[in-house]
């Protein structure tokens, strides 16, 4: 009888530990921005960070060259 009780207690402890680990993982992924939120058009990443480093990285990665390169193609079409 006592042995049965102990077994049940061990199972409860195992279940609680598993739940805690799963919760810890969920919080970690949520905070690191890997988790995706469902939206009307598929899934999307969480809003990007507003740290100076991340803003600066995205600012530097913004390529504004060749935005108007199709003008030459249109010119060619009109010249024919």
């Amino acid at each position, binding site marked *: 009888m006592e042995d049965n009780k102990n077994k049940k207690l061990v199972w409860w402890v195992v279940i609680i530990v598993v739940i805690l680990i799963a919760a810890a993982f969920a919080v970690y992924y949520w905070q690191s921005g890997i988790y995706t939120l469902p939206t009307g058009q598929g899934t999307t990443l969480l809003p990007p960070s507003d740290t*100076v480093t*991340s803003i600066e990285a995205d600012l530097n990665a913004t390529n*504004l060259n060749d935005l108007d390169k199709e*003008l030459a193609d249109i010119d060619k*079409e009109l010249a024919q």
Partner: protein
Amino acid sequence: MVKLRLTHVLVIGAMLVAPVFVLADEVIDGRALQLRQEFKLKQQAIQQEAKQNREVLMQEFKAKRETFKTDAQKRVDALKKKVGEERAKRIEQFFNQMVRKFENAIDRLNNLADRIESRLTKTEAAGNDVSKQRDLLKVARDKITAVETALGDAKTQFGATALSENPRTAFQKVKELVKGVAQKAKDAHRALVDVMNSIKGLRLGDKGTTTPSR
């Protein structure tokens, strides 16, 4: 004896006058706090109003983008009479491709401006003065708006090109406008870089270190 009396008078005098100074100091402190709070509230109201105006403007721009997309067939129909259907379609395709790139760039710049604003709000909440950075951000936002407005003008001119008797000549005006849009986009980007440089130049005090400018 006289010396002793004088000391007494001075001590008693100091004891009587001290509370007046303390009280005056508290009154000044209270008034300064009140003024600071009033200034903060006014600043928040101005920021809120600017945000609402920006949202209205964004909705207008969004509606104009949609109208341009839905008018594509009309432009092709008008242009095919002068250059043939296939070429008219290709020209429309090239122009749309370019417009999409510009719109993506504008969206990206707007997104960066929003993130910078969020950073400034946090830095300000930590007790730092960011009024100069906010002014610079306003300049950058105005420049981003100018890009969208200029792109709208170029799109309108492109519509006129399709209806023009001489599309080739009319397109030169579009080219000129689009080159202006590209330059404005670079200016807006430069303005955002200026805000970031200014944020990095902030000497964050003890309070500021609680929200580090990483």
